[in-house]
């Protein structure tokens, strides 16, 4: 018997790590990985509550979150590649103009 608060603690820790990485890191790819970390933290609390409330809806939501994360990773990494072609850098501080 593991109390649900332990799962919520782990989930909130992962989310907080994601937020911290997103705010402090300067590499675009690491920023994207921090977003993935936040999504994983949210997924964990979805599954914990699905088990607690005896409903399968949480599993479906996690499935949709994964699909959205996959789409986001595909498009975001394509944008990173195209930015790197024109700027030759991955540092977000140097990418401060939308136009070329």
């Amino acid at each position, binding site marked *: *018997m*593991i*109390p*649900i*608060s*332990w*799962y919520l*603690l*782990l989930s*909130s*820790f*992962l989310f*907080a*790590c*994601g937020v911290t*990485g997103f705010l402090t*890191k*300067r*590499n675009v*790819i*690491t920023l*994207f*990985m*921090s977003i*993935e*970390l936040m999504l*994983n933290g949210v*997924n*964990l609390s979805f*599954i*914990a509550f*699905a*088990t*607690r409330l*005896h409903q*399968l809806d949480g*599993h*479906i939501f*996690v*499935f*949709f979150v*994964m*699909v*959205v*994360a*996959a*789409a986001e*990773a*595909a*498009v975001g*990494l*394509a944008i*990173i*590649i*195209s930015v*790197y*072609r024109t700027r030759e850098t*991955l*540092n977000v*501080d140097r990418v401060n103009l939308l136009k070329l």
Partner: protein
Amino acid sequence: MHEFLFLLFGAFCVGGAINLLIQRKTINSALSLIVVMGSLALIYLLLGAEFVAVVQVIIYAGAIMVLYVFVIMLLNAGEEEVSKSNNIAKYFGIPGLFAGGVIGIWVLLQHHPEDKGVRIGELYGPASDVGMMLFTKYLLAFEVTSILVLIAIMGAVVLARRSNS
């Protein structure tokens, strides 16, 4: 036993997340993110969500992270440049983070005694039940997601294409 497994994989999760933050090289961050996702899949198994655990390994640890690692290798992303840090972040951010963490833990553990807890293996999320739900109750959302993935594929191809002009 279940507590031990939860604590073990939870410790892997926490260690991987912290390692993602402190590593300067991007590829090391990516590999520690894979550790986090793999141990999360095992925690999902402890919670009885077998479908989600398998999908987590296949999609997250498999497909998405392979994409990340490929892009890191393609762009030759090495060490992260350190930019000048702000004093406000140093003097207010770290105490703020600490205070927020303490408040969060206190609030979450407040309801600990009356909590019945999650019984391991109480509810299995077999793929058949999840699939039935996906194609009956959430059919519209499922079809919309397929369109979303199609748009993402086309967007990735268009954005990553080398323009001839």
